[in-house]
């Protein structure tokens, strides 16, 4: 039996035959609704670009809406479900698969080369916006997972800052030294990253494994996960990282990380969040790659699209949408307005144009992402349906281990079991 959502509602709505009142106001000019998440600072830049786009495309009006991350998803889901989706949707790497596979996004392949001129993009980054061989999102900027380091706390403790060659063994030692130095009250070396998925993924990749296979299955085994948990258990034991009840304050947001709370000298995030982290931290921060499993390990990191613009499958004029997206990522004047606020631009020409104009923080981000070298490997396949739940499972199991409900070995088995189940449910 198959029924549409609307026919279900027909009963309720028809009772007062409301359809007469339904709005059908269609104006002559083309209207583009753009929805994104972010701060007012991002909105200021985006709105300016929208103005610019309007002035260069007479007869087109744009209408921007923005929300904070956590409010963004329920509103988007409701609008998509109600067939009232915005034309241009800012998409996250995690959700693009969910929306694309369900047919909420328009494939953009037809516009490649005509209105969408992304030839000078990194090939890999275009693939990053592809699902099942079709392009559903154009990357607005590259970033990579990164360690945020409180340089002042390191100095106070008399410890050298981490370098690209720092290994996990080094990090455990450094962490314990910072905690031991006791220069600040209730202060520890590093945040407990056992439940941080990008960190775990990075570590797996250095081992030659991954989170998910191409066909959406789990790509590591219980031993990998047990080793991971055991490594953190040792660091916890040695007080190299924060204790579990402090780590549990971390909601993986900028302001709740142990770094921002003044509990640890290093925490894990993404490079494009550098400005935000510096904003709530008094001490000078630095970016560093994640530690290595051994001196010659590589390929843990990867440059990934920080976010996309996608065109809604419900858009009246997808070509206009593609044109807008192209303007957003390619136009020199737009680029000047946008800067690196959404991550390092993908277009080589835009990067070149921007490089001399960046401030110190922007510079650091650009240098970090483009300087990863051999530390960065290939982009993993887009996360499968259920990836969000799998991330949640990692976090919960990591907490079970850190709070002592499970040992590392049990943790490894539990995690692999749960993730396998989640992925098979889809």
């Amino acid at each position, binding site marked *: 039996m198959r029924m549409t*959502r*609307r026919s*279900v*509602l027909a009963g*309720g*709505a028809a009772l007062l035959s*409301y*359809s007469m*009142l*339904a*709005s059908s106001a269609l104006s002559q000019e083309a209207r583009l609704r753009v929805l994104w*998440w*972010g*701060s*007012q*600072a*991002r*909105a*200021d830049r985006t*709105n300016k670009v929208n103005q610019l786009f309007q002035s260069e495309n007479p007869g087109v009006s744009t*209408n921007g*809406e*923005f*929300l*904070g*991350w*956590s*409010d963004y998803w*329920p*509103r988007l889901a*409701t609008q998509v*479900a*109600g*067939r*009232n989706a915005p034309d241009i949707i800012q998409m996250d790497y995690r959700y693009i698969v969910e929306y694309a596979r369900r047919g909420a996004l328009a494939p953009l392949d037809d516009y490649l080369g005509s209105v969408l001129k992304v030839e000078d993009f990194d090939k890999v980054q275009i693939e990053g916006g592809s699902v099942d061989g079709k392009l559903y999102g154009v990357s607005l900027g590259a970033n990579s997972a990164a360690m945020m380091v409180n340089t002042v706390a390191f100095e106070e403790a008399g410890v050298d800052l981490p370098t690209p060659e720092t290994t996990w063994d080094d990090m455990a030692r450094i962490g314990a030294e910072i905690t031991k130095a006791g220069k600040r009250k209730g202060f520890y070396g590093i945040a407990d990253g056992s439940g941080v998925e990008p960190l775990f993924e990075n570590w797996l990749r250095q081992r030659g494994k991954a989170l998910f296979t191409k066909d959406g299955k789990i790509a590591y085994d219980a031993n990998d996960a047990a080793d991971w948990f055991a490594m953190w258990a040792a660091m916890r034991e040695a007080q190299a990282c924060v204790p579990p009840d402090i780590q549990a304050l971390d*909601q993986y*947001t*900028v*302001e709740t990380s142990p770094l*921002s*709370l*003044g509990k640890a000298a290093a925490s894990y995030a993404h490079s*494009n*969040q550098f*400005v*935000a982290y510096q*904003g*709530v*931290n*008094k001490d000078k921060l630095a970016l560093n790659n994640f530690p290595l499993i051994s001196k010659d390990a590589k390929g843990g990191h990867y440059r990934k699209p920080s976010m996309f613009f996608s065109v809604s499958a419900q858009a009246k004029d997808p070509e206009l949408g593609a044109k807008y997206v192209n303007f957003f990522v390619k136009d020199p004047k737009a680029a000047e307005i946008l800067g690196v606020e959404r991550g390092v631009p993908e277009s080589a020409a835009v990067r070149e144009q921007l490089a001399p104009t960046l401030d110190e923080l922007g510079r650091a981000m650009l240098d970090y992402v483009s300087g990863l070298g051999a530390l960065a490997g290939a982009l993993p396949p887009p996360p499968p349906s259920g990836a969000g739940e799998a991330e949640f499972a990692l976090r919960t199991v990591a907490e079970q281990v850190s709070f002592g409900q499970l040992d590392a070995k049990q943790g490894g088995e539990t995690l692999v079991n749960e993730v396998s189940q989640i992925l098979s449910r889809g």
Partner: protein
Amino acid sequence: MTDATISTVTAPPPATISGRSPLSSTLIHAALIAASIAMLYPLLWMVSASVRPEDEIFSSTSLWPSSVDFASYVRGWFGLDVSFGRFTWNSLVIAVLTVIGNVIACSLAAYAFARLRFAGRNFWFAIMLGTMMIPYHVTLIPQYVLFLDLGWVNTILPLVVPKFLASDAFFIFLMVQFFRGIPRELDEAAMMDGCGAWRIYWKIMLPLSLPVLATAAIFSFIWTWDDFFGPLIYLNDMNTYTIQLGLRTFVDSSSTSDWGGLFAMSTLSLVPVFFFFLFFQRLLIEGIATTGMKR
């Protein structure tokens, strides 16, 4: 007894219990003041956070900021595309309409449930309570589709019209409980004088229910003021945003947030509700006047 005598009954003093010793009075005040401090501490911290430097908000637990700066208030008020004055106005319009709608529509339904006899009364009462139990997240999308078909999305209609149709069962149930506390002899006396249901509702029930009507008004206002999920879904254009939506716009957990602005505007946003509360709670006291009457 007729209407006239009801409305002119004079008020005895508040329900003071005389002859209390100074000691017990002091103890009560001490307990109340201690409780007040516990109640207020988090709010004081919020005010203090609104004037302290941004990079100190999360790492310091002290109540005293290292320096005081009101820049957050200016930035908060003018920092978004639309000023907070606009949000305040939008919130006020919705809240006031909600108060009116709830008080009128819910008191009508409550009167029917509490006093009138009609077939199916218990059935409808149970259904009405049942509507309180459904988590709104699962009716959200069907409701959104309905309002979208009506062309009401991006207007305040989805937030206001249901209130005039007594959609909030909480208030109906609340009023039913209070209406049933009003002595039935009053209705019967009025009935003898030839009053119909409408006159009894208007001349006896409502005047005698000022405390609960004031309560409903206060809650309607405050809960509407604090609501964000409804506005989040139905108000898309920033010009139509309410205060709570405006506040949430300061925070983006994935990038930069303006925490100083959030706390400054959170503090300011308490001012109108607080005055609304102060004003309407007087009605709670005045309510004594009518309920202290002879029976």
